[in-house]
């Protein structure tokens, strides 16, 4: 330290009491030039940012408002529901309708206590009550039937110690449930081989139907269902809750405004890598021939001796299942059909095999499906594996830009784009940076979220929790169906959309099993 050396008295303020000297002022306000520099930098940065935003808004002129959720119609008359099937999906649907199992509520409370980040319980309790009553439940496994009745009585969404309401009646068969006069509408969440049969019987009795995907198990019943639903004029909703995903709505808007240019290729996929994802579900310890009505489970399927594996893991056998096509391709297809309105493909080719889960299943665990849409001049490519979860996005590729759709929507300009050529050359558009990014719940939507925001958003940590409530799309999908019943109109995933979904999936299965390219005869409305 050279304190002794060259000491200058900077430290003692001017003590001449009368006035503050010039020297004082300069020393006191020494930072003014720095503030000047700061202000200059700040204004300049904001100007550049604003100019950029303005120009970009002209490039991608999508509305920046979040997608509005239609309010519930309140007519004071509860809709009386019946539930058929209370397995994994049935339980989720009941929760989404506002009737959780008490044990599930206890689990959510416990999870939150253990991990504050888990806000499922809070979000769930914020879910709107839909003004419905559950009057009947039916499941061929008595344990599930009782659980369904308990959930149906959980009108206050409480845990096991809570106060339950009146329990719905447990029906032995679905036909008895459908015949009940105190049921207006049914939710069908059974194995695939029962979907259309039950939906047809429900429609014949004038009951509105929310049916899990896929719409049907065979081709002929698909036509029959469309016919009955239209004749009876019931409100039919197919269970593709992706219809309620905000980013899909935004994607549709982008397509309509030609942001992508000519779309020519669509890539969608399924990537799973765990037994549960591959349909190797748990076998319930209380399941046995006396607690399961095996004959009723079999129904329209080929006869087979009692098998717990087949009962709980039915998706693994063509006898009850529609494989990857019905279970997972349909979600991807419906998402794209919602965005692009592609309809039924002109032709479908498919290949795959049972390459990993050699557990006696008959449906492939790795599958590719190529759908051609000559009318739209594009190919839809579906690629699935149940034994690797390397994430591959849902991508729509156009000449001018491409977009990846998840809960978010991100659009990148193509370096070789014609539409954006000048803007890329002038540097306004950087093909490596998104020209548009939508994050659910965020007020504005543009490509300029900071890196921090992007990261938080991609982990679902930001807007979906804060501004926008985090809402279950299945809940919204059921709500839309109920609103349509009250208003007497058809919902987003109506019977026409369901028909397109069903036929596309059947074409894929047919192409795979017959090992040939199958075609759609649009005039005859037939698969050839």
């Amino acid at each position, binding site marked *: 330290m050279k304190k002794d050396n*060259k000491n200058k008295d900077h*430290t003692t303020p001017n003590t001449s009491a009368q006035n503050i000297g010039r020297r004082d002022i300069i020393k006191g306000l020494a930072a003014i030039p*720095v503030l000047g520099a700061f202000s200059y930098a700040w204004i300049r940065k904001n100007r550049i940012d604003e100019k950029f935003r303005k120009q970009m808004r002209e490039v991608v002129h999508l509305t920046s408002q979040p997608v509005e959720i239609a309010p519930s119609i309140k007519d004071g008359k509860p809709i009386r529901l019946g539930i058929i099937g209370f397995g994994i999906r049935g339980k989720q649907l009941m929760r989404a309708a506002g009737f959780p199992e008490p044990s599930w509520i206890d689990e959510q409370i416990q999870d939150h206590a253990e991990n504050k980040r888990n806000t499922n319980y809070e979000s769930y309790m914020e879910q709107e009550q839909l003004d419905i009553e559950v009057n009947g439940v039916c499941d061929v496994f008595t344990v599930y039937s009782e659980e369904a009745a308990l959930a149906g009585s959980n009108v206050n969404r409480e845990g096991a110690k809570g106060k339950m309401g009146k329990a719905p009646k447990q029906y032995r068969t679905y036909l008895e449930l459908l015949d009940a006069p105190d049921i207006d509408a049914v939710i069908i969440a059974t194995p695939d081989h029962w979907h259309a049969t039950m939906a047809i019987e429900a429609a014949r009795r004038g009951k509105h139907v929310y049916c899990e995907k896929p719409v049907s198990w065979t081709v002929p019943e698909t036509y029959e269902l469309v016919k009955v639903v239209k004749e009876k004029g019931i409100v039919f909703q197919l269970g593709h809750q992706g219809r309620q995903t905000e980013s899909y709505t935004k994607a549709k808007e982008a397509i309509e405004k030609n942001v992508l240019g000519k779309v020519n290729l669509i890539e969608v996929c399924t990537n799973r890598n765990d037994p549960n994802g591959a349909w190797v579900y748990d076998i319930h310890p209380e399941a046995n021939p006396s607690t399961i009505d095996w004959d009723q489970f079999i129904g329209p399927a080929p006869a087979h001796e009692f098998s717990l594996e087949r009962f709980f893991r039915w998706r693994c056998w063509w006898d009850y299942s529609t494989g990857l096509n019905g279970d997972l391709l349909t979600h991807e297809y419906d998402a794209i059909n919602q965005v692009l309105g592609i309809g039924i493909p002109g032709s479908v080719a498919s290949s795959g095999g049972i390459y990993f889960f050699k557990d006696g299943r008959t449906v492939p665990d790795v599958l590719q499906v190529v759908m051609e849409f000559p009318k739209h001049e594009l190919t839809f490519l579906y690629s699935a594996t149940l034994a690797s979860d390397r994430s591959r996005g849902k991508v729509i590729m156009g000449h001018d830009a491409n977009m990846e759709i998840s809960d978010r929507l991100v659009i990148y300009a193509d370096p070789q784009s014609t539409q954006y050529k000048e803007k890329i050359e002038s540097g306004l558009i950087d093909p490596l940076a998104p020209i548009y990014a939508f994050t659910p719940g965020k007020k504005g939507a543009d490509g300029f979220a900071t890196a921090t925001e992007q990261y938080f958003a991609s982990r679902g940590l*930001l807007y979906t929790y804060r501004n926008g409530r985090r809402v279950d799309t299945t809940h919204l999908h059921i709500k839309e169906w109920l609103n349509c019943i009250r208003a007497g109109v058809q919902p987003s995933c109506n019977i026409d959309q369901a028909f397109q979904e069903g036929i596309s999936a059947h074409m894929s299965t047919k192409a795979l099993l017959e090992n040939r390219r199958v075609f759609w005869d649009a005039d005859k409305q037939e698969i050839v």
Partner: protein
Amino acid sequence: MSNSVIINKYTNPQTFFLVALRILLGWYFLYEGLVKIANPDWSSFGYLMDSQGIFAGMFQSMASNTDVVTVIDWLNKWGLTFIGIGLMFGFLTQLALFFGMLLLVMYYLSHPPLASVSYVLPQEGSYLWVNKTLIEIFAMAVLLVFPTSHIFGIDRFIFKSNKK
């Protein structure tokens, strides 16, 4: 300002670098504050939820209450801004340093750079126990014990009478 009485003689370079450090820290805080004020979508929510280490539970429970988040947002936006102005202009500097350090300690405790944790928010370097926040805290501590605002700063006027 009792410290300033004890250490009241700096060399020119000492004064220059101490004042420069103070102004640079001020710039840093001021910009961090203003940029948050300017962005209507900014919230501390994501950062709080991304907390790790032994205090994570406390920060996350703060984030779970919307009203608390609103208060924290406000304190961060305006706190950072006023601390920035304070440091830059040498205005109530000791107070600004104290609250600045308090904020930084909070950031450090919510995002400790431990070997065992990782964050959603990527860091632009790799840190073990010591990160930029901690160094900033200590830089501010240095300024706290080597005050300069009575030489170059508005505090010169405010605390004038005390210095007789």
